[in-house]
């Protein structure tokens, strides 16, 4: 039996962690071989993904239970990009310790874990029944627990991991409960069957299932009030893990919701809309409020990412095609801007504590880095012509297709709040004078390269039409 080529990247992604980790057996701890393999492997997968022709419609099926539709393809790209960036970002932490944190070891296993998480995300978007769906979610989550506790010496890390896994298990319990009721309602695990059942008619069982599912995933997507773990975990976990967490796990979670809302639950989207709108509004408001007076960088990013989650939820109110377009595009933009910010923080964090005051005098000390920071912040704040604005514009546009103007008005007004705290960060980098003399920051070639790459991406990704086209054209069919 011949393997269809659109499945190859997934298979590679599945084998990839084993190869990387296995390579450790054949070379000593210091060697760079696993790192090289990892780079080649991920880039190869990314290339292959880009070669998959867009099919439109229902997508293609692999042994009838593994769907690769266009949304899936793009989600794969997002996840792989996030994994690659996370890997590049983490490299420095394995070479020398960050300020105030012990040095990290076992990069091969680290990358393997990231790869597993990525594969989990891929599983979620390719699932056609709830078992696969649930497994994907778990595969995506469990490595994250491990990653959070990667620094066995680090007290905060282990505490964060404990909090994370305890709450995560509860959330898993919620989801399972939800799935069980969904199963009970539809009498089947297959999405199409559920879809038909839902279309046929609703019952309290269904709504309880929906409630539990949303609460469960609300934990992973850091919706209100399930976000409480995020600030602590973001702060406690090693910085590269925080970066991966803020992109990959969010991407997985939102993909989960998209598949759910536009898959089996599509017939009742209108009834769910109020819940989505509420979650979106409250979450972005609370996230913005929480970020207002932060002075620790990663905790700040945690709240900002909570707010971003709220913005993403707005898109779920729209029609399928528009929402998927918006979310994919936004995730790309969000990943790029977020990683840009994290790269800058990482460079700072290698010399000083990761707080706002460490950024003082950055514009004098290393202007290009300060510009990169400003770009990423303004992009996250959604200021045109940076990519972040167009991302948010997509989300709101998708939300507006069903006429939720008030929610959008609320969301854009919150943008002002967001702009305020992003400006706080820009201020400390651009305006505040350093207390004493700062030793100049030394950037490795990889860091400089990545920062330039990401900055350019953030600047042009938005308004250059051909870039946006090749991402969206696939959905014109949906």
């Amino acid at each position: 039996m011949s393997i269809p080529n659109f499945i190859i990247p997934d298979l590679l992604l599945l084998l990839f962690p084993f190869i990387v980790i296995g390579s450790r057996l054949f070379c000593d701890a210091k060697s760079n071989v696993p790192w090289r393999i990892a780079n080649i492997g991920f880039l190869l997968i990314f290339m292959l993904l880009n070669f998959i022709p867009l099919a439109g419609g229902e997508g293609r099926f692999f042994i009838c239970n593994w769907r690769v539709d266009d949304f899936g393809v793009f989600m794969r790209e997002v996840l792989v990009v996030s994994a690659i960036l996370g890997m590049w970002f983490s490299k420095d932490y394995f070479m020398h310790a960050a300020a105030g944190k012990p040095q990290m070891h076992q990069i091969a296993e680290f990358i393997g874990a990231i790869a597993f998480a990525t594969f989990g995300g891929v599983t979620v978007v390719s699932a056609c029944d709830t078992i696969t769906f649930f497994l994907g979610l778990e595969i995506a989550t469990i490595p994250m627990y491990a990653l959070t506790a990667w620094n066995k010496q680090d007290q905060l890390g282990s505490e964060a991991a404990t909090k994370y896994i305890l709450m995560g298990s509860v959330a898993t319990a919620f989801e399972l409960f939800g799935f069980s009721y969904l199963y009970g309602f539809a009498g089947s695990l297959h999405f199409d069957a559920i879809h038909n059942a839902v279309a046929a008619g609703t019952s309290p069982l269904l709504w309880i299932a929906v409630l539990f599912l949303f609460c469960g995933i609300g934990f992973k997507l850091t919706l209100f009030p399930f976000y409480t773990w995020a600030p602590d975990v973001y702060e406690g976990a090693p910085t590269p893990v925080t970066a991966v967490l803020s992109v990959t796990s969010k991407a997985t979670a939102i993909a989960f919701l998209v598949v759910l809302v536009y898959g089996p639950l599509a017939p009742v989207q209108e009834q769910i809309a109020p819940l989505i709108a509420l979650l979106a509004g409250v979450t972005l408001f609370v996230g913005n409020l929480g970020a207002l007076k932060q002075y620790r960088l990663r905790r700040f990013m945690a709240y900002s990412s909570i707010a971003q989650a709220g913005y993403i939820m707005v898109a779920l109110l729209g029609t399928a095609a528009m929402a998927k377009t918006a979310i994919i595009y936004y995730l790309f933009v969000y990943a790029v801007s977020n990683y840009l910010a994290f790269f800058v923080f990482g460079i700072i964090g290698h010399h000083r504590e990761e707080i706002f005051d460490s950024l003082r005098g950055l514009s004098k000390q290393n202007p290009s880095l300060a510009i990169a920071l400003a770009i990423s912040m303004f992009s996250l704040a959604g200021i045109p012509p940076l990519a972040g604005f167009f991302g948010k514009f997509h989300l709101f546009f998708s939300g507006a297709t069903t006429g939720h103007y008030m929610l959008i008005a609320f969301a854009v007004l919150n943008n002002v709040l967001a702009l305020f705290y992003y400006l706080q960060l820009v201020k400390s980098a651009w305006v505040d004078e350093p207390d004493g003399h700062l030793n100049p920051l030394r950037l490795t070639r990889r860091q400089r390269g990545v920062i330039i790459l990401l900055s350019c991406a953030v600047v042009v990704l938005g308004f250059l039409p051909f870039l946006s086209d090749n991402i969206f054209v696939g959905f014109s069919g949906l």
Partner: protein
Amino acid sequence: METVLFNLIWVIPLLTVLACIPIPATCERALRTVHTASVSFVLLVVCVLTYRVFALGAAPADPASTPFALRFFTDIPWLNAFNAHYIVGADGLNMLLLALTAFIVWAGVLVSYKIKGNQKVFFALIQLLATSVYGVYMSFDLVLFFVFYEMEALCMYLMIACYGSGRRDYGGKKLTLTLAFGSSMILATLFGLYFESGTGSWSLMEISKVTLPMDFQMWAFPLMFMGFAVSSSLFPFHFWSPDGHSAAPTAVSMLAAGVMMKMGAYGCLRFAMFLMPEAAKIWLPYVVALLIFNVVLGPFIAIRHKDLKYITAYSSISHLGLIFLGLAALTPVGLRGASLQMISHGFLTGLFFATIGMIYERTHTRDITEMGGIMKKMPFLGVGFVIAGFAGLGLPGFSGFIAESTIFIGAFQQDSTLTRIVTVLAILSITTTAVYILQTANRMLHGPMPAKFQTLTDGCFREKLVIVVLVFCLLLIGIFPGPFADMLDLSIAPIFNRF
């Protein structure tokens, strides 16, 4: 060819920024030369095009641009995801505003040769700001317009907070956030316009073809109008401008007060009032009530201030109030007066802030009580300031008088009680304007001079050039208002026809 030139207007600043990236920040001389060259070129281009528009007069324009008669009309598909187009063009109003911008940007670059700090970044930011303003004044697609309109926030904060003076962080935040607040209100309505109009297009001309549902207009118009009015510092959203201006460096004050504050009024006229005329007819009479603060109380507040930039800021607030008086009059004369005031006040306040900046550079204080008699030491700058003052209090011969009298006559034609009252109050408050302007000029330029100012020097050639050019513009409009009025009337007619 002309169309290409026209599109270059906003491209050139960006290209200049890119061109300057390889130049190290240390050789400021080269940077200044490059930027000066680019802005001068843009100025040249804009002047030529403005003349072309004037020469074409009422000649038929591209039919695709009806109901407007847009020159250099360009329409290219841009973001297919939501069908946004790149639609630019210009009629008399746009072209004059573009010319104003070009002049102010040119002057702004010239006055900030001596700015402290990283000049590379500063000039780059000025150019970005220029791009955004040019873009605003030429784009007729809502998305494109908004992208340009919101870009300003990106530059303003950094420019004020890094290169400003006094409470620069506070001022910069206040300004940026308030403007962002306004533009967020606009953004909220844009989606409504797109979906409620049902044309599936962001183009101004397309949307204007359908009549928007009344219930939508009723909430969308005030939202959009106030959103725009925020950046024109209409009461109660004026609080950002005094602090912002006083904190900002000279060039930024010039750009902010000279052209950015006009973007709001322009938006009110071109977008809010044009797209939702029915609601405008209902709402605008109430807007007039807000003007009592701008027009009547603004000058009084200026009287009580000692800081030159605060005084100028409040005078801007009152002058912009007049713009809204003209808009709210809903008569052709009033609209024309409003747009005349936009242009005239741009030059006027540009001159004001330019001279203030130059004086500040020398005296290192903006407190008029600490100054005095500096007319002896710097007659040229002093005369420049006095001329700005006279233009500001609406002296015939300068553009201000033309604009204001047009607004008064136009506003008086509106036969609504509130408008009548406010118009009369506005006419009577030209005295208050005179009071604070003369008081400032006298305190600062005349009387005995403190010993510490003995060493002051008059403006150098560069600064004199700026002053002369701006004064020339003021006089040109003031003495030959005819052509400008005609250009504006042509571009206002399609807007007024909707009422």
